[in-house]
């Protein structure tokens, strides 16, 4: 049966979720999440480990039934019309969802056939996608011999066969080296240019900053902040202060002064002797410098910058994003998670 145009579907919201709840035993993995995503944007869902990002995506992608609340994809309810929703989405999960024992081509051909493509069409589509994702050379090898990055790319390729208008990407760049990650970002931007909507999750604040038009910050199963990246940064203050102390012994007393004068929590990087804190108004820095002089703390460096999402996270949740340190070590060493 064909559903008539605009009978219940609409193009106003790509994702419209209200009060989504999922419990695993006593663990409220998702505890009332609201999300509104306009078509044609990259929407970032940001949160530390265990925040409920994957669980939220799984509910939106019809893989998990919500315990409460409702979600609509282009106007179609994920519980009432799951089969229609599945025709509108592509899902790249956090863990590779391709067949390990088959080759890249075989995987794509099978998914294409399942999506209703004919034999020749499926072959053509598969080789196009492999080409697009620079996997042609590895096409005939079993996936067992694929690197993490190749697997990730194949996974994304598999989600694009039907050219779905909405694509879910759960931590698309976790475990990728910086170069591959940049390629992935390029691909995501191109997808959106071609008219798709992308909802991605990430633990990397920098990634959301780089890619997303709007961001929802989730912590412990709840959305704790939502808006454009700039709005979020504004909510923390116009500026972010960074100071470096000459004498590391004084780090703690310096931090106390910073927090007292700026009336905001701060982050310290002890190795560097650095303190970072959000600032509501840039001219507070004068008060701070005077207070430092009075306490006889010598500064090596002072700078005022636009705040990073790290500080946004800190201010909103009151605890430090565990992921932020990982981001840094990942950048330095290209080391992989998992």
């Amino acid at each position, binding site marked *: 049966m064909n559903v008539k145009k*605009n009978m219940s579907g609409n193009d106003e919201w790509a994702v419209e979720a209200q009060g989504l709840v999922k419990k695993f035993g006593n663990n409220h993995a998702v505890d009332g999440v609201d999300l509104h995503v306009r078509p044609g944007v990259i929407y970032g869902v940001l949160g530390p480990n265990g925040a409920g990002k994957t669980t939220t995506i799984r509910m939106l992608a019809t893989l998990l039934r919500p315990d409460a609340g409702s979600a609509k994809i282009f106007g179609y309810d994920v519980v009432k019309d799951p*089969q229609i929703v599945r025709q509108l989405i592509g899902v790249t999960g956090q863990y590779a969802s391709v067949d390990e*024992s088959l080759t890249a081509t075989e995987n794509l051909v099978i998914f294409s056939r399942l999506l209703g493509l004919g034999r020749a069409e499926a072959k053509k589509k598969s080789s196009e996608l492999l080409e697009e994702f620079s996997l042609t050379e590895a096409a005939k090898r079993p996936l067992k011999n694929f690197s993490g990055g190749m697997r990730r790319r194949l996974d994304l390729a598999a989600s694009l066969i039907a050219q779905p208008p909405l694509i879910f990407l759960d931590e698309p760049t976790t475990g990728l080296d910086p170069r591959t990650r940049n390629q992935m970002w390029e691909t995501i931007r191109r997808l959106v240019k071609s008219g798709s909507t992308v909802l991605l999750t990430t633990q990397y604040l920098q990634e959301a900053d780089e890619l997303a038009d709007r961001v929802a910050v989730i912590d412990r199963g709840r959305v704790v902040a939502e808006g454009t990246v700039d709005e979020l940064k504004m909510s923390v203050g116009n500026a972010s202060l960074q100071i470096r102390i000459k004498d590391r012994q004084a780090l703690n007393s310096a931090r106390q002064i910073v927090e007292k004068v700026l009336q905001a929590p701060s982050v310290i990087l002890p190795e560097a002797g650095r303190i970072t804190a959000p600032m509501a108004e840039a001219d507070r820095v004068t008060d701070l410098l005077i207070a430092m002089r009075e306490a006889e703390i010598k500064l090596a460096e002072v700078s005022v910058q636009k705040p990073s999402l790290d500080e946004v996270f800190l201010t909103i949740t009151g605890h430090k994003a565990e992921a932020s340190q990982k981001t840094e070590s990942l950048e330095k060493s290209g080391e992989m998670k998992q």
Partner: protein
Amino acid sequence: MINNSMVPVSKRQLKKNSGLGQTVRNSLTMAYRGLLKIRRTPEQLFDVTLQPIIFTLMFTYIFGGAISGNVQSYLPVIIPGILVQTVITTSIVTGVQLREDMDKGVFDRFKSLPIARIAPLAGALLADTIRYTIATVLTFAMGYIMGYRPDGGLGNVIFAGVLVIVCSWAMSWIFAFFGVIARTASSVQGISMLVLFPLTFLSNAFVPVKTMPGWLRWFANVNPVSHLITAVRHLTNSGSVGWDFAATLIGAAVVVIIFAPLTVRAYMRRT
């Protein structure tokens, strides 16, 4: 491709349910996937290739003299017995592999695609008939090499083979059910063995039922596996079709009628 612009949602033809045609097509694609997997991992076929060869050799020479006087006259008794035992044992794999498959990431993708939801299950059951066929052919071939010349003729041997494959397919619904409800693949293997051993060994597969104590004889006589074995013996050795044949088909139908809906329901709930 990526550069092409997207078809807007309002212009898309969206289907609320997958029809019968799509269900069949999706199931066939999933069966094709099963075959590809068998081809990629031929070691999976160890059991269906080695068991018919080893069991046929072993049981024939161990029991042959004791039960039928000599190996030659034991062959018409033992070959159908071993055939049924091996092929049905093979059907356990359906459940174990289904569980393994459902735990893999690729299953998430199947669940997120707009395909008939039953297709992965139907495809797996379908692809496994190839394993039964291999085991059937090998057992008959082994028997032939050892000197078994069934009087029923080639046509009836093939007919008997098909009967065994159909019945094993029916049995595989039981193991598929375990596969769907169990938490780990090894527990599927465990429960399935527990069901399988009494069914295949407490039957007329290796020894005449009249040598058994009364209670065991009762079980061996009602055991549907015994009926299947007798039906195969009649077909291969004399080309005749009788009550056992009918009883077998009824038994197979009952198993499917009970376990197919149970499995499908449990499967839908788990996915």
